[in-house]
């Protein structure tokens, strides 16, 4: 990689860390309900919404009631998205006259967007009407992220409070997160993206004559090109910020209309991690010990940075096969070199690798390069980042609460080693918390393995594996990992828009979302009733580098132990074959 490539990676981290702190403090103020002049207009909307919904914003909810709210809202979201897709042919704003989406695809997509996964089995341009994209998907991009953040905030309150069962009000957290955090950020980002050339129009697709008629492989002559348009910028902004990742176009942020310039790329990849990084600070601020937030952020970075660098190096190195065919893999100022298969020239290697790790570290899943065509180990990194449980930044809210689950397990093991029964942030970690944290961490792991096994055993699963042998195996593993951890990125070599995969991955997404979210809320409910144990020299400090290393070790060991055999049969053997 060129020095400039390294500089871009460093710049990215610098800007991310610089922005995360003020954003985190702001988000804490939003959830704490600190009044602010800036939010005055929003408060009118807020009050009006509560009145319409019949919600008493002062009501404090127990964890079960909070969870009911989450579930009820998710059910309504699912039904809304499902029905709109099924009826899109009858609804307006469908200039391409696209037919109703199939039942299994609608099922999969509805779950996918409701769970903040944004796995897309379909191609955006050829399946979804503008109305479906806007009404069904855009709104889910916002609220699925806001739900994740709300659950995180409930968990933080659980740590902070003593002797009460109230975790806050789900409807208030949902509304505030949407109106004061996601919406303003999206608005600003959308406008900047438009300035870079991301389209925002309600015109129909435009057909233009080609400058030079082209002849396809099968001898047909093509004289026209269809430019897919649409209100893309407003959706793309939130799909990046809300760790959704569901692209407006089929190739997501690799499409020049979705991500036209290096600057738009920088802002989009920044947006992927921005809220997740900011929430670490929100956590610190709300538990009244900003070092705790820094520690979790540091743990995330300790995993993220080496993997990003590793991915960039591996992609730059390319493959011996490419070199043998005479491709120049060495980067220079005149060309990016490396494994450029499935990558865009304007992004080159550094930005493609950075995006790949950021989008899988966070449960975003948008892409600006085709992960399927990454080198085996370069592609292992994004896959493994998902298998780690989407806790390295992770989804909006969901990433951090997942990380807190790991912190709880870490505290449990490490706490014993200092000779005390474990406690985290002053709350005793006991059998109930361990049970719930184990479910939250292990359910997605188990789903990945079981789902992969099922897909590889069934004819329905094997039928649409386009790449044979090892790589096909990696693709299935990648797809199930992505769905089970609510990431949504795909290696498109797998034909996933089949009833089999739509159903399997739909179930995987449900498990990945709710079997983590509900245990987290249960823990919040249990912690909030516990006494606060004051810290002393005998308490395991959870803000030190040592603790950071320990959390990272637990995250990595759980990830490695669970997936080493599967990865060995996939990317690792592929790499060894490639190098053989």
């Amino acid at each position, binding site marked *: 990689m060129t020095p400039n490539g390294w500089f871009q990676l460093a710049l990215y981290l610098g800007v991310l860390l610089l922005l995360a702190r003020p954003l985190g403090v702001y988000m804490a103020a939003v959830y704490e309900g600190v009044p602010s002049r800036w939010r005055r207009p929003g408060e009118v909307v807020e009050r009006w919404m509560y009145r319409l919904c019949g919600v008493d914003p002062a009501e404090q909810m127990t964890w079960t009631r909070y969870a009911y709210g989450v579930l009820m809202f998710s059910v309504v979201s699912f039904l809304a998205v499902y029905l709109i897709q099924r009826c899109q042919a009858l609804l307006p704003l469908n200039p391409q006259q696209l037919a109703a989406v199939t039942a299994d695809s609608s099922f999969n997509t509805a779950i996918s967007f409701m769970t903040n996964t944004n796995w897309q089995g379909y191609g955006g341009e050829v399946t979804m009407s503008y109305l479906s994209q806007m009404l069904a998907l855009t709104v889910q991009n916002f609220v699925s992220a806001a739900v994740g953040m709300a659950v995180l905030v409930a968990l933080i309150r659980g740590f902070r409070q003593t002797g009460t069962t109230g975790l806050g009000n789900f409807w208030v957290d949902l509304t505030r997160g949407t109106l004061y955090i996601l*919406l303003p950020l999206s608005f600003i980002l959308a406008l900047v993206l438009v300035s870079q050339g991301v389209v925002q129009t309600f015109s129909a697709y435009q057909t233009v004559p080609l400058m030079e008629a082209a002849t396809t492989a099968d001898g047909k002559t093509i004289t026209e090109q269809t430019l897919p348009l649409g209100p893309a910028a407003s959706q793309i902004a939130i799909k990046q910020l809300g760790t959704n990742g569901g692209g407006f176009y089929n190739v997501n942020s690799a499409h020049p209309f979705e991500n036209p310039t290096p600057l738009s790329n920088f802002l989009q990849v920044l947006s992927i991690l921005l809220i997740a990084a900011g929430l670490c600070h929100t956590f610190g601020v709300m538990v009244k010990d900003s070092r705790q937030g820094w520690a979790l952020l540091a743990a995330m970075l300790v995993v993220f940075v080496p993997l990003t660098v590793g991915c960039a190096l591996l992609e730059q190195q390319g493959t011996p096969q*490419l070199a043998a065919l005479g491709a120049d893999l060495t980067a220079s100022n005149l*060309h990016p070199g490396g494994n450029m298969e499935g990558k865009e020239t304007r992004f080159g290697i550094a930005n493609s690798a950075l995006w790949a790790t950021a989008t899988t570290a966070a449960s975003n899943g948008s892409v600006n390069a085709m992960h399927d065509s990454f080198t085996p180990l370069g592609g292992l990194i994004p896959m493994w980042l998902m298998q780690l449980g989407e806790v390295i930044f992770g989804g909006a809210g969901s990433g951090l609460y997942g990380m807190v689950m790991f912190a709880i397990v870490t505290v449990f093991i490490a706490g014993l080693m200092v000779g005390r029964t474990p406690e985290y942030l002053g709350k005793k970690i006991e059998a109930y918390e361990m049970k719930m944290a184990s479910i939250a961490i292990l359910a997605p792991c188990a789903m990945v393995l079981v789902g992969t096994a099922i897909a590889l055993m069934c004819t329905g699963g094997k039928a649409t594996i386009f790449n044979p042998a090892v790589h096909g195996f990696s693709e299935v593993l990648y797809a199930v990992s992505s769905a089970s951890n609510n990431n949504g990125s795909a290696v498109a070599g797998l034909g996933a828009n089949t009833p089999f995969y739509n159903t399997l991955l739909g179930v995987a997404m449900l498990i990945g979302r709710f079997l983590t979210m509900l245990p987290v809320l249960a823990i919040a409910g249990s912690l909030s009733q516990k006494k606060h144990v004051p810290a002393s020299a005998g308490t395991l400090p959870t803000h030190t580098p040592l603790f950071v290393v320990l959390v990272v070790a637990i995250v990595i060991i759980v990830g490695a132990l669970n997936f080493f055999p599967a990865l060995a049969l996939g990317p690792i053997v592929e790499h060894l074959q490639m190098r053989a």
Partner: protein
Amino acid sequence: MLKNNTKAVTAEETRPDQAQQQIAIATDGWGTHIRAAIVSTIALVAILCGAYPLIVWGISQAIFPHNANGSLVYSADGKTVIGSELLSQAFAGEQYFHPRPSAAGSGHDPSSSGGTNLGPTSDKLLNGIADDPATADTDESYAGIKHLSEAYRKTNGLAVDAIVPADAVTRSASGVDPHISPANAKLQAARVGRSRGLSEADVLLIVEANTDRASFGFLGEPGVNVFMLNLALDRVKQ
């Protein structure tokens, strides 16, 4: 045991304030949630799907109409749209710079964007597939990187074992990558110049003019916009 009993009693004694606090906490199940879920979904749809994109649209159309509508390029008379600055078109002629190979639709189709999605060790990707002579009516052939690089060298008059820029022989992610690397353009310049009767230096000047540098000098990679370059070449001729 006595100890436990004592504990239980004292625990209750010390918590009357908390007991009172809990009265305000509702514990019933679905109750008001159904209405809240439906109504808030509708209200949020109105804000997020109605107001938000419309306002973004309105401002965009007012401030960045060109960018918001697809960065369209018009014909010299300004009447017809002939393409977008941001999207590549297929070019195969001698007189044109060639974009990167494409896997979008039947080639460079922005409404069916896509990469090959072939793994790096895939034999199909590397060595392609030959047409099956048994089925005369269909063409199964697929150009592997081997064929692409051979064709690239041949078209541009390079030695058979010449090293070529990686981007010239690999398909992009979108299939409509508007750029090629400057190194790639340089290798094509002589051919284009020859066929247009321009000196290579002149061609390179036009290439230079259509090269998108890294933003601010450091973001992203430099790239030559093939569509805009070819358009510029055509307009020079005119």
